[in-house]
């Protein structure tokens, strides 16, 4: 049943609820697909066949008993390997956690299970979510299903690739500087970074706590909204979790109407370094929004030019502190404990053996930025920039409802091209970082293929904090208009694997 893997999440849930197909059949079809293509794609680090089939069976039994099923019951999902899963390995793409079996579920994992979502397995990622290409995984790179020699974005490249390769209709990512949106953009899929605090971080292995945010990845805007609703909401186990109702994202995704909305084009996200075909598709999307009845204006946010430097001080600073927990004492790898070495020596040998180059770079960069004598100049200034960025957003959102930009300056680049050039790699997150620093909500959705390389381009939509529904309203309208224009979805143009 090949067509099952091409269903949207909404279609899948509806077919299961009506009894047209069983959840077990759906799960099996996706497991078969993973079997057939994942050797090439390498989207999954671990496939939980037994767990997936037993979760699917539970949904079928529930239905047989006449119990009510949730809107995503029986829908398969690929989970980024940065969320803990009780009894299922969680590595964060790192050697230091190889073989670790968490004794507890992340809140997000529990919510998915409670919703009857079938977790197929854990997806590949840049080590501890640090990277923009998934090349920093200790377990080898993931290929972009559009061209397997190119990167699928990162850090959540595995989740995005699983969607684009039809290995799962839904996936979960985390977005610290663009790790949901940039993979979405380069794989022709939808990715949403909800407002900071919307989705619980309990059981999300921390990289940069004031920036990390879990969120939905999907092939359609409506599917992303359904998943958003399933995972968002207050969690007493996360003290930074927002205690307020989740915006009506599903309703917004179904509106398909942007008439009267005010949309701002961020002036700073254009120019040198932006690929011509990316700008062409972006400008066409802006024109489309105008045709759909939105009011489009240009907005200037000068402080955004300092966002990337500020991010590469704040995120490494928090990372250097968070990753101190990998000390070889309580879990994970331990190297060099020969009975005569001290705990400190064993810790240093273990971290040397267990962490990859990007993680080491960031830990040292953060240690530098926080050290006495440099703290004010680096970390202190970066925190001031963060304030200026929030102010720029506040000013912009006083005039417009949402902002738009390209999600990333270029399409997917070849694997290896930027692997040992950190600054070139960091530029992939130029347009996504400001939203993390300010904590607002942002989405990427496909807006076409760049003419010069036939690779997907992402349109980024940014909304104020707690106004996540606006992303879905604009995204849903753009998606519907583009699919009408093309006569099909963008992913149907992806080559067969």
């Amino acid at each position, binding site marked *: 049943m090949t067509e099952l893997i091409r269903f949207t999440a909404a279609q899948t849930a509806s077919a299961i609820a009506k009894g047209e197909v069983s959840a077990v059949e759906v799960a099996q079809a996706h497991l078969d697909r993973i079997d057939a293509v994942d050797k090439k794609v390498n989207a999954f680090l671990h496939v939980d066949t037994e767990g997936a089939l037993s979760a699917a069976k539970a949904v079928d039994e529930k239905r047989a008993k006449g119990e009510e099923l949730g809107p995503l019951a029986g829908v398969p999902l690929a989970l980024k390997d940065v969320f803990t899963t009780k009894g299922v390995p969680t590595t964060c793409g790192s050697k230091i956690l190889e073989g670790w079996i968490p004794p507890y579920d992340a809140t997000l994992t529990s919510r998915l299970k409670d919703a009857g979502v079938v977790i197929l397995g854990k997806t590949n990622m840049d080590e501890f979510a640090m990277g923009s290409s998934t090349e920093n995984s200790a377990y080898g790179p993931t290929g972009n299903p559009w061209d397997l020699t190119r990167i699928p974005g990162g850090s959540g490249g595995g989740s995005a690739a699983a969607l684009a390769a039809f290995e799962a209709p839904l996936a979960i990512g985390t977005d610290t500087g663009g790790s949901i949106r940039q993979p979405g953009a380069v794989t022709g899929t939808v990715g949403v970074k909800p407002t900071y605090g919307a989705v619980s971080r309990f059981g999300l292995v921390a990289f940069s706590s004031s920036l990390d945010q879990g969120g939905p990845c999907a092939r359609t805007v409506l599917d992303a909204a359904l998943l958003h609703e399933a995972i968002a909401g207050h969690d007493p186990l996360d003290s930074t979790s927002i205690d307020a109702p989740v915006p009506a994202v599903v309703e917004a995704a179904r509106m398909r109407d942007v008439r009267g909305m005010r949309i701002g084009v961020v002036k700073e996200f254009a120019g040198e370094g932006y690929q011509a075909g990316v700008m062409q598709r972006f400008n066409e999307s802006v024109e489309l929004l105008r045709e759909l009845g939105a009011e489009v204006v240009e907005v200037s946010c000068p402080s955004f030019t300092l966002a990337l430097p500020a991010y590469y001080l704040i995120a490494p600073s928090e990372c250097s502190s968070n990753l101190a927990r990998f000390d070889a*004492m309580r879990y994970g790898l331990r190297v060099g404990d020969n009975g005569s070495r001290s705990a400190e020596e064993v810790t240093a040998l273990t971290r040397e053996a267990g962490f990859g180059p990007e993680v080491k770079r960031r830990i040292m960069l953060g240690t530098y930025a926080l050290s006495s004598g440099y703290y004010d100049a680096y970390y202190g200034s970066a925190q*001031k920039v963060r304030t200026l960025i929030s102010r720029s957003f506040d000013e912009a959102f006083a005039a417009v409802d949402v902002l738009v930009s390209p999600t990333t300056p270029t399409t997917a680049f070849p694997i290896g091209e930027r692997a040992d050039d950190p600054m070139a790699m960091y530029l992939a997150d130029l347009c996504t970082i400001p939203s993390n620093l300010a904590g607002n909500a942002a989405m990427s959705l496909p807006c076409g293929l760049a003419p010069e390389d036939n690779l997907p381009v992402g349109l980024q939509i940014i909304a104020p904090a707690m106004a996540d529904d606006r992303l879905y309203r604009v995204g849903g309208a753009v998606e519907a208009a583009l699919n009408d224009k093309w006569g099909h979805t963008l992913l149907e143009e992806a080559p067969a694997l």
Partner: protein
Amino acid sequence: MPGITREEVAHLARLSRLELQAEELDHFAEQLDVIIGAVARVSEVAGQDVPPTSHPLPLTNVMRADEVRPSLTPDQALSGAPAAEEQRFRVPQILGED
């Protein structure tokens, strides 16, 4: 702002508990120098009278009720330990002989 030397990187590695190899020190010194050069632009705002932001949410003192609730059993808590003994994490020596 000054660049970063190989010796400084070695010091950072010690502070970071990373037993770096000699060739890594050379490579990282070069790369960190480039990165620090690029991010130093944030100091453009150093003199400005702008309050710092450490976190996107204006939250303070989030409390929960002080109630007993289920937690990990000792076996679960020790399940990932590299070494355990008598329901405790077994670690290398942390103090010297003297």
